[in-house]
């Protein structure tokens, strides 16, 4: 049996994957709300709101699970990350609060449309900024420059994340989330014109993804050397890169030929592979150069108890989650066509 901390780490990676695939797409939906244009701008916004309304709060909980597992199973890593990335995390929280509140205010502030438009704008802008900050945090952790503060304020609390590499990762996260959202949204409607709007966005996004991925890779040579080294020289890297590229091409091909369920499968696979590639390159470090998942893990008895709690929780969680998606996502084909 693998060490307990590896199992907990695996659960955290799985939770992060669900967060990215599900909540990531909710943020992406907000981005497409911001960039809604053309004759069907209003219909696009309504489709996005309808698609994410019932599920975004449940999807958001994956992030909380990741955070809770981080501080329960790897307390020193949580303490170090939240100390040195204080400012970036605070901005991330600002985005999370504004996105969620504005979305719900827009849904329930029915008094006049002016207010609704303002809430919509806040929701959309926060949906754009939050994924960037999420990527910035991941990028700063990956860059290996996080250390116990002791230096000057600017060095310790800003230099680690106000840099090209973290922001490149932030942009990468944003583009991937937008890609997921556009691909998923093609399956949320029967309206061919609306479907095509998001199909085109998805195709453009997939191309931008390639460019941003290249930029991140090039920047990593100087700014995240350790992770770059692992990505370049491990046995698993070429099969993984190849599979990611194939998934990306599969997404494009499926979008081109309007096989939307396949596009969803390929895009989710592509994003998952990117995330897992990052995790493999990061392994066994949580925060380079000092904290690994082995030396920062809680005592075995704690990890054991956590794993039992997780097992019990999952037994309740997955049927409920399946039910949620069954109720709201299972019947797109039956819903009436509103336009076109």
């Amino acid at each position, binding site marked *: 049996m693998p060490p307990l901390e590896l199992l907990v780490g695996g659960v955290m990676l799985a939770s992060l994957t669900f967060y990215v695939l599900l909540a990531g797409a909710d943020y992406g939906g907000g981005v497409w709300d911001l960039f809604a244009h053309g004759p069907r701008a209003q219909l696009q916004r309504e489709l996005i709101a309808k698609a994410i*309304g*019932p*599920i975004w*709060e*449940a999807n*958001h*909980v994956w*992030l*909380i*699970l990741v*955070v*809770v*597992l981080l*501080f*329960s*199973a790897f*307390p*020193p890593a*949580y*303490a*170090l990350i*939240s*100390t040195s990335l*204080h400012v970036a*995390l*605070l901005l*991330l*929280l*600002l985005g*999370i*609060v504004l*996105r*969620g*509140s504005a*979305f*719900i*205010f827009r*849904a*329930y*502030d029915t*008094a006049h449309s002016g207010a609704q438009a303002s809430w919509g704008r806040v929701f959309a802008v926060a949906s754009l900024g939050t994924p960037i900050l999420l990527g910035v945090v991941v990028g700063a952790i990956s860059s290996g420059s996080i250390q116990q*503060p002791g230096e000057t*304020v600017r060095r310790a*609390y800003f230099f680690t994340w106000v840099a090209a590499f973290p922001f490149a990762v932030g942009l990468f996260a944003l583009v991937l989330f937008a890609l997921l959202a556009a691909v998923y949204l093609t399956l949320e409607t029967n309206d061919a014109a609306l479907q095509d709007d998001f199909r085109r966005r998805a195709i453009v996004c997939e191309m931008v993804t390639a460019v941003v991925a290249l930029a991140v890779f090039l920047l990593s040579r100087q700014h995240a050397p350790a992770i770059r080294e692992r990505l370049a020289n491990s046995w698993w890297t070429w099969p993984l890169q190849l599979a990611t590229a194939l998934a990306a091409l599969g997404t494009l091909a499926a979008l081109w030929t309007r096989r939307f369920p396949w596009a969803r499968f390929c895009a989710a696979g592509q994003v998952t592979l990117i995330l897992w590639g990052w995790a493999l390159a990061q392994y066994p470090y949580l925060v380079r150069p000092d904290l690994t998942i082995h030396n920062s893990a*809680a*005592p075995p*008895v*704690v990890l054991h*108890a*956590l794993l039992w*709690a*997780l097992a*019990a*929780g999952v037994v*309740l969680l997955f049927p*409920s*989650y399946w*039910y*949620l998606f069954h109720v*709201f996502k299972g019947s797109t084909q039956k819903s009436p066509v509103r336009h076109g």
Partner: protein
Amino acid sequence: MSDLVAARSQMAMSLAFHIVFAVVGMGMPLLMALSEWRWIRSGQQVDLLLAKRWAKGTAVFFAVGAVSGTVLSFELGLLWPKFMSWAGAIIGMPFSLEGFAFFAEAIFLGVYLYGWDRISPRAHLTAGVLVAVSGAASGMFVVFANAWMNTPAGFVLQNGKPIEVHPAAAMFNPSAWPQSIHMLLAAYAATGFVVAGIHAYALLCDQHNLFHRRALQLGLLVGGIGAVLQPLSGDFLGKSVARHQPVKFAATEGQFESEIRAPLRIGGWPDPEQRRTRYTIEIPGLLSFIAYGDTGALVRGLNEYPRDVWPPVVPVHVSFQLMVAIGFAMTCVALWAAWRQWRSPCIAGSRVFLWAVAASAPLGFIAIEAGWFVTELGRQPWIIQGVMRTTDAVTPMPGLIVPFFAITLLYLALAAIVILLLVRQVRESPGESGPQPRAGEVLR
């Protein structure tokens, strides 16, 4: 403002804000599920309309509660990294379980809010019940973790580090049940009373409105049961505090001297310099009886402990007195409501009664904030009672006043918006013409 004070203020403010939304998120689902259950039994449209209205309120409060709860899960590390580094592994269990309870709450609230015409009424009601149950569970799990800070358990201290950690013993620490039951009842009492108060006010203007009457009844049912049971749970918690946190107990009661036959002090203002509590009504022996079930028992006073482990006595005592006074007032209103329900044909028939209920609308929340102050301030100077001081837990980051002001401004704005939305929604209530749901009234 020093960084420590800024950090403490930010944490206090974040919790004081979140607690309101968390409490409504525990209480409102119960109300909406009860109303829907009544609709399924009675078939009356007014009950359905009420359930839908309450669902809207729940949606707003749950969303703001969810995001402000997320802020807290990060703030534990942003502000108190040394505490989390030390204790994260020990108190991770209740937080992890809370994560799953929160999942269930979010999932079934999604089903409830958006599933009115997608699933059968019975399935829909079940979703509502599950929201209420998981909301209560998630609140209780979080309080388990807070209780551990008051009565740390489940580890052995060696050279300042915890060893032999026992997660279950940590989770079920001595304060876990007393504190979480007290919080749960407080949530029901506060939510029930604020709902009953709003609709009592509406009935003062429109006495025969069936919609408001139903709402008043259900609000008083949930709030009243919570308020009547709360003194019992308060006694249970008080005995636990007397036993495990004698310094906090002495501060809440304004007890400076150790004495047998200690009196219960009603009101009063402690003077830590003179070491006595002035302007108070004393009932001899009652404090000894409350704490230990024996009027002759010895209650230890603050004088037995060094000054540097005293909590701020004045705010702790005054907050405690305020909480207890409000609790008694709410219990009285609840008993009055029960009497009216039993003796008179119409619970809403008396204007005096309606005024009393309307006036008590905000009381539960004031009591909750006051009680939270007692718990947290009463534990100072410790972040983990007897183990780690708050000063030793704070982040080394300078300039903490900036995040404090940022978060404060954000929350003030959110609070103002939520109040505005709430007022608007209450104003839109069905008028005298009767509670006919209008087109477009139905949630998506």
